[in-house]
């Protein structure tokens, strides 16, 4: 019972919580946004201009990366709830994927 090694979960949990918070407020309305196809909102120049603004870029990056950390965290714990797979493997797969998406979306947002 005296296995008092410090967990690194404060890191992953904070990303999970940030993603969960963002998703709770923004994902439902965003899912309705394709209705914007009816309007002007999703015109190429308009969205591109949004992305070219530093704040817009940051928002888009957060909207992609943080929910993936949220999903990775719940998937990892859900798999261990279901007793699926070895912990190290599912840990590497879940959080590794979120990490890669974070890098790739960051690249697309800032450097592409």
């Amino acid at each position, binding site marked *: 019972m005296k296995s008092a090694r410090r967990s690194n979960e404060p890191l992953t949990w904070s990303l999970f919580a940030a993603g969960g918070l963002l998703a*709770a407020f923004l*994902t439902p309305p965003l899912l309705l946004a394709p209705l*914007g*196809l009816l309007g002007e*909102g999703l015109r190429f120049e308009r969205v*591109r201009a949004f992305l070219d603004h530093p704040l817009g870029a940051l928002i888009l990056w957060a909207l992609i990366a943080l929910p*993936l950390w949220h*999903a990775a965290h*719940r998937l990892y714990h859900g798999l261990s*709830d279901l007793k699926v797979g070895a912990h190290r493997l599912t840990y590497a797969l879940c959080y590794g994927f979120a990490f890669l998406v974070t890098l790739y979306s960051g690249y697309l947002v800032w450097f592409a």
Partner: protein
Amino acid sequence: MSARRPYIRPMPRTWWLRNPVFRRYMLREATALFVGGYGLVLLWGLSALRQGEGAWLAYLAGLSHPLALAFHTLALAMALYHTVTWFALTPKLMPSRIGNRPIPARWVKAAHYGLFALCSLVILLLAAGVH
């Protein structure tokens, strides 16, 4: 000699099917697949946006494909469940009193839903093309 023979019950991986509370918990956890899945849809859109107008138009056409619409509808239901469960839990992590005065939990919840309504309004107006 001790007559003790403690019996340890196994925990099958289907444990969560036995109790409605646990089924709702698993559903809550499963919403994350759709929340994350939608992140990937956005990523796809971002990469299309980077490739130019043609790719962007193809992306938008993809979004109106019946399969994409089905995904969006299901994901919307799941995302709303995420919102409701999230708003039910997060107030427990917040300060529950200011000095001697407790903050009624109802207010905290109401503030969450108010902000949610505001976010929805802003996003939908933006998507509709309002400046």
